[in-house]
């Protein structure tokens, strides 16, 4: 049976210190929850740089290519003489190509972010905690999954209370 150890901290600074401490002790698959982004948290959790940029690069290249090819195909397949220009006048394609590139980049950013964050998530055992509702306005939480290497409930409990956790809760996942 899986379980999650949820600890609440008083303020973002304490949460940052806690994340640093856990990283230093070698834990890696824990997560922190706060109502707003905390500067320096990436470094404290020793997170790698996000891969989102590369996803957006793929999306934008695809949009660029698709936009340009679409217009080329259209103007050659259904030729119209527009102000005496040749059918394949690529300068005229650039604004639309650019717009489609932006559209595809935006889509790949949003949906890439969803995919990387494993959203939408309809069930997560952490939702069982009443305390956790505070995470959307004034609560700062740290959750450690029992899948973590070297998970030991009592040891972690001690560690967390050492680093000034306000409240510690064990959430059991019976699914």
């Amino acid at each position: 049976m899986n379980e999650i150890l949820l600890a609440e901290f008083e303020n973002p600074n304490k949460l940052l210190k806690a994340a640093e401490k856990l990283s230093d002790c070698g834990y890696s698959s824990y997560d922190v929850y706060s109502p707003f982004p905390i500067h320096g948290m990436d470094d404290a959790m020793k997170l790698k740089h996000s891969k989102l940029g590369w996803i957006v690069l793929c999306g934008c290249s695809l949009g660029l290519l698709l936009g340009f090819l679409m217009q080329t195909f259209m103007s050659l397949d259904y030729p119209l003489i527009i102000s005496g220009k040749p059918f394949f006048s690529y300068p005229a394609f650039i604004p639309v190509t650019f717009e489609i590139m932006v559209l595809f980049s935006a889509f790949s950013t949003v949906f890439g972010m969803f995919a990387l964050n494993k959203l939408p998530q309809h069930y997560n055992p952490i939702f069982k905690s009443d305390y956790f509702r505070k995470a959307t306005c004034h609560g700062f939480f740290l959750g450690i999954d029992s899948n973590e290497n070297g998970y030991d409930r009592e040891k972690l409990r001690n560690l967390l209370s050492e680093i000034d956790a306000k409240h510690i809760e064990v959430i059991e996942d019976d699914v």
Partner: protein
Amino acid sequence: MKQKQLVGNDIEISDKFSSIIRKLFIVGGIFSAISFIIFFSDSHVSHYFYFSYLTTYMFFLTLTLGAIFIVLLQHITCAGWSVVVRRVPEVLMKNIPLMFILFIPIVFGMHDLYHWTHLDAVAEDHLLQVKRPWLNQFFFFIRIVFYFFIWSWISKNFFKRSILQDETGDHQITLDMERSSSYSMILFALTITFAAIDLVMSLTPHWYSTIFGVYIFSGSVLIAYCFTSLLYMYLRKKNYLKDIVTVEHYHDLGKLIYGFNIFWSYIAFCQFFLIWYASVPEETEFYLKHFEGSWTYVTILLCVGHFGIPFIFFISRWLKRNLKYHACMVIWICFMHFVDLYWIIIPTVAPNGIDIHFVDITLFVGIACLYLGVFFKNLNKVCLIPKKDPRLSESLNFINY
């Protein structure tokens, strides 16, 4: 988190750059002398000389004007991060009087440079007749003096107050500068637009482009940010400001360079696109000249080198933070800005194709050395950072997340 404080005395006024100043003035003097010898010895070159001079002149004028813009922008947005990188643009914009002196050769070359000064040609040309109220020598000189008056007024105003704050540390000065930056910005926008029209666009007096002022402006801000970044790297190499101007500041300068590079491309494309689409003979004349002979290759070089290469190879965060790479890219963009001006100005005199002359190089090196000599001479007299700015601590502790 530990707050960084201002320590050490490497920012203080001292005679740091006297050896480099001497070298710059010597080299500048030699190369300027060579250029003038070429000018007087070869009557064939003297016509071309003025166009080459104008190209180099515009390169440094745009740099100085861009520096004014950077300073105004930082005050108008009340920017905190940029306090430690404000002194170099401030000293760069102090070169406006030098640019006014360097304008004198253009006065002598008016007849060679500007077709509309030939009154006999104007008399037969209806279009130029119509434009005569604006394009006549008397009004031209009045305007030039007026532009330089405005620019030197703005630069003096902001430089003086910033230096005053170094001594007194009065916070009111910052507020005053923020207030006056608003109308200074408007004056700056108008003067740079009309100066671009007068100095560069009137080389081809039949042609007009309503976006031309913005085109020159975008290039000037780009080059000013590039030089700011480069000069701080030079200071860093000389072991000044090592802990003060950090990678974070270079990263942000890199972002601005990248942004303004795209802005330049956007404006350049807009200008071309509308003229190409509308196909009005008066307007297309300019671009036809640039698709002739070897100018086609310069046009392609501009598209690829000014837009494509920086767009792809300067996009990454890691590359902007790698200072050696950053410096290479910035030098490349500076070179491209010169090519851009060369591409605008030289086809008027060499319509058949590129014709790089020895005088192009000597003039550029000569004026560049004089310009930097005056720059370092002014930098010698001031602190390397605005040490009593109220936002200094914010700038010292600035980090990109």
